[in-house]
């Protein structure tokens, strides 16, 4: 019975998942493709590639909040500074991190790798492992 219930949940979830796609357009309406970018200064970062505009790629990534990271508002725009160097503009300031929009010129891009089949991440693994142990403990009792 629990297995049947689980299978039913999956079927319903999969059926509903198609709702996010607009008819006639097989891609998500909201821009954003998971990528890994390495730049000329030797840094590599993972984030989301949103657009190419005004001669630069617009790339969204997160910075963990800490002593080295701060947000300063200048003329109504929130700029993100990492070790006193501006890295982009703040899209969303959250409790633990800051979503930042960065502009990268094409000349500065060394490699650009696109992440595909990104259905599940480490969050799913952790949730799966936790569920595994919870069920095992409940089973032992």
């Amino acid at each position, binding site marked *: 019975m*629990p*297995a049947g219930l*689980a299978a039913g*949940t*999956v079927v319903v*979830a*999969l059926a*509903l*998942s*198609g*709702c*996010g*796609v*607009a008819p*006639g*357009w*097989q*891609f*998500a*309406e*909201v*821009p*954003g*493709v998971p*990528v*890994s970018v390495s730049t000329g200064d030797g840094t590599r970062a993972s984030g989301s*590639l*949103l*657009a*190419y*505009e005004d*001669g630069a790629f617009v790339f969204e990534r997160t910075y963990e909040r800490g002593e080295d990271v701060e947000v300063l508002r200048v003329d109504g725009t929130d700029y993100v500074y990492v070790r006193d160097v501006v890295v982009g503009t703040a899209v969303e300031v959250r409790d633990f991190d800051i979503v930042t929009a960065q502009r990268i010129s*094409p000349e500065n891009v060394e*490699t*650009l*790798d*696109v*992440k*595909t*089949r*990104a*259905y*599940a*991440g*480490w*969050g*799913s*693994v*952790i*949730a*799966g*492992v*936790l*569920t*595994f*142990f*919870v*069920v*095992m403990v409940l*089973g032992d009792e």
Partner: protein
Amino acid sequence: MNTTLGRAAALVVLALSLAGCARYVESSELDASGADVGVVVTLETGETAVGRLLSLEGDEVRVELTYRLGGGTDLRGLGDRRRVVVDGKDVPGEITAVGRDGATTVVSLRRSLRLQEIDEMTFHRSGREASLGPVVAAVLGPLIGALLALAI
């Protein structure tokens, strides 16, 4: 001992089944690897089109754009001489498919663009991945974990 080994093996299977799904593909080999990235392109000429990103290397962008015939968009010529015409101007590129979407004829055209020709371009995930991702993340991990625990 056997139970411990079984649990360890199950956890390895669980981790591989979830984390092993994702893979990175070089932007220069998107088409060859079957990766789906959508683009909405607005050119310096003002032309706007939607389609699929085939490759992105240096300042060269290869895309497969979709043109819906009607209005100022037309398909002229026969056989190998067929060409897409938008507002009276030929669109350079290779026609890869001509099909129908309801009452509208749709033409797929592969073309190569320079970044300098592009005014704006947005990148979009595969709709299937974008809509399935949250569902899989929320449901599949706990589900596999629970089923493995019940199976041991």
